[in-house]
């Protein structure tokens, strides 16, 4: 199958790039799941983040998504108490898009984009696992007792993780 070439998108509105991607690229349902817990609310159940198939297709294609640092900049702006609206949205559209990623690299990008920094920033210093990348098959098969899901502190690479 011929690989579709990504147009030169730097300077094109990100939303328009997504329109191109939706039309041209086939969605990719990932088997990866990111299970994480909020270190400030340890009584809460574990959360499970799943990439959107169209977003994953963009990540694998390359030349569409902005660097993750752009989202951090916007998040900083939004966290300010006097925030009314974004004034640096151009960062999404004018920053050079990132190259194609592997599925694993895309998951790492998504963690840094959509999961709070307090969860992953000093991950290795935590005294219990608070973020695990696993596959769909490693999660419980039913949602019974969903609010009691926690990351298994003795998690191993091939076992059920929550």
């Amino acid at each position, binding site marked *: 199958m011929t690989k579709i070439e990504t*147009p030169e998108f730097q300077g*094109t*509105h*990100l*939303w*328009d790039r*997504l329109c*191109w991607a*939706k039309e041209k690229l086939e969605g990719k*349902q990932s088997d990866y*799941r990111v299970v994480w817990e909020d270190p400030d609310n340890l009584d*809460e*159940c574990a*959360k*499970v*983040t*799943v*990439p*959107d*198939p*169209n*977003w994953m297709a*963009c990540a694998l294609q390359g030349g569409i*998504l902005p660097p993750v640092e752009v*989202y951090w900049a*916007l*998040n900083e702006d*939004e966290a300010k108490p006097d925030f*009314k*609206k*974004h004034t*640096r*949205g151009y960062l*999404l559209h004018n920053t050079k898009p990132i190259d194609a990623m592997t599925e694993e690299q895309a998951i790492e990008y*998504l963690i840094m*984009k*959509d999961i709070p920094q307090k969860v992953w920033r000093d991950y290795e210093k935590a005294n219990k696992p608070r973020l695990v990348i696993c596959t769909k098959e490693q999660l419980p098969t039913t*949602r*019974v*007792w*969903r*609010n*009691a899901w926690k990351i298994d502190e003795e998690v191993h690479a091939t076992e059920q993780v929550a």
Partner: protein
Amino acid sequence: MASILRVNTLTDASSNNSIATSVLHNGSAKAWWSSNDTTLKDSYNIASITDVAGSTYDFTFTAAMANDDYAYPCATLNTTGNDVILTTGVLTTRVRQKGIGSTDGSAGDTQPCGAAIGDLA
């Protein structure tokens, strides 16, 4: 883009029923989603879904909204009659949907869908 039509107004063959392209853009959903639990059936401008807890899901955007004043009509298809949806914790890059009928966090409200209508950043 391969081809771009640069016009300000669209109109029919008899020059009636005109509409400005800005109206089309401003009035269209900037993101939408339809999901079965954490499996997104189809979507636009969604980066990820997070299963936060029983009947509670976060949807994050790829292209951020300009502010958090946008509209977010949401619904769910469920099997337990828990058909009331709260949308809480809205950010420019995220909508949180919560089904309030389910208190046991088990099977209800697991097919959320919705949209974001407003201005993009």
